[in-house]
């Protein structure tokens, strides 16, 4: 019984599906962000929020790559900044931002989203 549970948990943990979600502002931008994140093998989930001139990208990398997170963030940020020079890009591999981004995907009120993104950016800067 325990063994079956263990095996099924391991198998569930190993599925290689990638989920990348973007809140739709315009199609080309959305698909472009999706394409960029798709290129990263180590990322298994990504959520991108476009609001005003802000672009918030929250990703989740495989757990054993935790120590490389900052490097991954930097690389992704540089690439996104090149493609979207008009946007203020924020990239984070933190679970908090990934979790909060899910709520923002379906939020209709743009003002609320902008406020929340601003708050998340501040949270990201905190060290202790």
């Amino acid at each position, binding site marked *: 019984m325990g063994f079956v549970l263990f095996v099924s948990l391991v198998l569930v943990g190993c599925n290689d599906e990638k989920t990348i979600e973007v809140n739709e502002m315009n199609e080309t931008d959305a698909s472009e962000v999706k394409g960029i994140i798709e290129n990263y093998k180590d990322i298994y989930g990504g959520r991108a929020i476009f609001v005003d001139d802000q672009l918030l990208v929250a990703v989740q990398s495989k757990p054993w790559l935790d120590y490389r997170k*900052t490097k991954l963030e930097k690389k992704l940020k540089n690439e996104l900044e090149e493609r979207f020079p008009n946007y203020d890009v924020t990239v984070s591999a*933190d*679970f*908090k*931002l990934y*979790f909060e981004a899910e709520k923002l995907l379906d939020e209709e009120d743009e003002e609320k989203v902008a406020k929340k993104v601003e708050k998340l950016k501040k*949270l*990201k800067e*905190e*060290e*202790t």
Partner: protein
Amino acid sequence: MDQQKYQEIEQQITPPTPYLKNVAKAFLVGGIICTIGHAITYFYIIFFDFTETTVGNPTAATVILIAMLLTGLGLYRKIGQFGGAGSAVPVSGFSNAVVSAAIEHRTEGYVLGVGGNMFKLAGSVILFGVASAFVVSLMKLILVTMGVIEW
């Protein structure tokens, strides 16, 4: 009976230490404690404004509080008997060391008893923790100055 002979007899009589069993128990107990800690981590991330970088402090505080209560109720001793190092290495073991020393010496008064003995065992943890943190950060500073890694 000379000393050598005594030792031979002693070796024969002493039951062998079940190393593998002890390691497995420690792994299990330590793993369960850390899983609970991780659950607390996600609780703070989801319901409060903590990120993965900042969540460490409240999580450690909560685990310490839980272990403190368990020590006071006499339950942590049982966990320690079963799990050995698995219950001593996580931060809950540190909390247990502080609180159990305080309880043990409370009859000797608050200043010389509780105050003087509280950090009997935990004091060395703090001392070597601070000392090794100093060495590690010094090494990191040197590596950053040389340009090998970044902060």
